[in-house]
């Protein structure tokens, strides 16, 4: 189980490295293009995003839902190097993995302890490939990972109170296509359909006197797809809002969504 967790972390690192490579390539391209054609300079936006991440997960032979209420700062570079748009985000995540059972521990634990805070980091890129009438078609990819803090719980009902510690980690990588309609003046609805992979684990340790056990419960997404419907709403020249609804269909379908407020400069 430990090796699975290590593998998951390694995979996260690889995906992150690839995205960073793309990012730096983008920056490099941007710089080159800026030298050759000053008109292609990227525009930057910063914003605040609140997001309810909600996705069906599988662990062992069971399934439940991973919920995470995230509050993030987001930076967005549009038309970076004339190649693509880039999103970077970082913030606080609150991962809730209620319902996970740890039956490898000496005393089986059923986790109903609610949210565990952590740090969420990620980035995304998208690029319009072609335009037909007012419809823009393109591709997108994003990656996010959450590193949870340890959270302690008192184990009551035993001869002496024990302690359990929970620590979640998870990551998600998605890649797919989108269509954006820019025929309206202030609203641009868009639809994304992506293949999406989620993996992670919840580590649990228990200690009652000298009875000590630990288990890392690996988890993965219950499906392989995400569908996002959103709207870019221009509130003013520099401020705009992006509400979105996201569905992860699969053996345990879950619906989430978020709201972002951006300021362009």
């Amino acid at each position: 189980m430990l090796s699975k967790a290590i593998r998951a972390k390694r995979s996260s690192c690889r995906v992150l490295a690839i995205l960073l490579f793309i990012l730096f390539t983008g920056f490099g391209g941007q710089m080159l293009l800026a030298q050759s054609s000053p008109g292609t300079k990227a525009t930057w936006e910063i914003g605040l995003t609140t997001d309810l991440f909600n996705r069906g997960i599988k662990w062992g032979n069971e399934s439940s839902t991973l919920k995470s209420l995230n509050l993030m700062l987001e930076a967005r570079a549009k038309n970076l190097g004339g190649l693509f748009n880039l999103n970077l985000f970082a913030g606080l995540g609150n991962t809730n993995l209620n319902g996970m059972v740890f039956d490898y521990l000496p005393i089986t634990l059923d986790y109903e302890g609610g949210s565990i805070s952590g740090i969420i980091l990620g980035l995304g890129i998208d690029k319009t490939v072609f335009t037909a009438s007012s419809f823009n078609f393109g591709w997108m990819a994003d990656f996010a990972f959450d590193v949870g803090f340890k959270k302690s719980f008192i184990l009551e009902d035993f001869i002496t109170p024990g302690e359990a510690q929970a620590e979640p980690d998870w990551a998600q990588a998605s890649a797919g296509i989108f269509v954006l309609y820019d025929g309206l003046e202030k609203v641009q609805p868009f639809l994304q359909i992506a293949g999406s992979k989620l993996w992670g684990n919840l580590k649990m340790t228990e200690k009652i006197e000298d009875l000590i056990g630990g288990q890392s419960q690996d988890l993965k997404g219950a499906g392989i797809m995400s569908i996002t419907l959103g709207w870019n709403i221009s509130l003013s020249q520099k401020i705009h809002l992006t509400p979105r609804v996201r569905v992860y269909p699969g053996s345990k379908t879950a619906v989430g969504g978020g709201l972002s407020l951006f300021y362009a400069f």
Partner: protein
Amino acid sequence: MKNKNSFFKKRFFLFLISLICLSALILTLGSSELIAQKRKQAKPIIFLDKNNKTKFGENIISNGQANLLSRIKVINQLASKLPKQKFSSRKIIVKFKPEISLQSTENILKVYQPKSYRLIPRINAYVMQVAEGTTVEETLAALRSNPDILYAEPDYKLQLATTPNDQLFRYQYALANPGGILQIPGSPTGKLKADIKATGAWDYAKGDPNVLIAILDSGVDYTHPDLINKVISHGKDFVNNDDDAFDDHWHGTHVAGIIAAATNNSEGIAGVAWNCRILPGKVISADGEGDYSWLIEALIWAADYTSGQAKVQVINMSLGGEEPSQALEDALKYAYNKGIVLVAAAGNHSAPEEPTFVLYPAAYDQYCLAVGASDYNDQIADFSNYGAQLDVTAPGVWILSTIPIAQTEPGYLPYAFASGTSMSAPHVAGFAALLKSTKPWLTPADIMKIIKYTPDDINSADYPGRDDYAGYGRINTERATAPHRITKK
């Protein structure tokens, strides 16, 4: 014509004979079915309802018999009597220093002219019968003065940990105590849930047939209807030195029923470890006595026993002796190191104003769980030995279980009520088997800790936490097997 007549006569005669035979057959079958029905109706049945609460008597009442309780024997023989001698008058256990070769050890032993000797494998100790005309004490003194010998000790006597009684109980309150007045003579009031919470545990663990519980005792009546499908082999008899551990006492069969009687079969009693199986080892004679050497050999044998996928994971010892023994400790260590959970009775000789102590092997704290007895009110039984090595308690007063059919008196059922820490230990052994079945990766140390840290502290008002009288408390199988919910608070 004559021929034709004789032909018809013959046919009529044959037809008549066939008719008679057929009638006889029908009558025979009918009567045997009636007998079978009668037998079935008269079967000793203790029903289990869907909550696994025992209900006695329905079948008997329908059979026109007034009271099933009158057909359940009460063990009132003094099975826990103190042995007449503290140790065997003819046998000694001796172990040589590791640097002495096997050939040399035998040569040295022969110097003492033993009547016989045999090696206990794995722990490399000898059981020797002293020479004619010499006493155990003399031989021991001579052996102990030999620098090649690591230890030499008497072959102490074992005693069964059962207290006599003369009352009946109506329920297996130990598994699920309904509380209120228990419908037995004397009508004592039982405390609701003063039990091991077996019904709660069975939702999560019913045991694995490959988890064997070795019962080192007086043997087991493996023909008993509640045990016949639960005993993996006829075991080994260390008393008579053969491969048939049939119970000629009653104690081992009673212990076996508590641990793993066939359960949820609409018949008899429920065992703690539903699906686990039993391996009997006979170390107690028909008189209720045994020698340490038999127990030591049985421990080694049980620890090494395998049958296909099945192996011994738990050993129950509802017996004990007053003296420590290095060889016994070595044997316990051997079994423990093979991943086996060892459970033993604390003993039944507690008396007011008299010093008491936990018997051996239970007192070997590192390797063995020492079990004391509690009652239907979660009170510590007055006979239950106590001391620093006591780990937990389990119900041990008026426990209903199986007894050998051969020892069932006419008109009685092959079940009996008995009391003692002997009856407490098998509850813990069954509990350990349930844990081992659901989590086979746990070590004996883990299982011992789980059993110790999950009980109900029944004497917390006077002695909160672990104490010498109840140990950590009365075992709670549900708390150890059911998932423990972690909540926000």
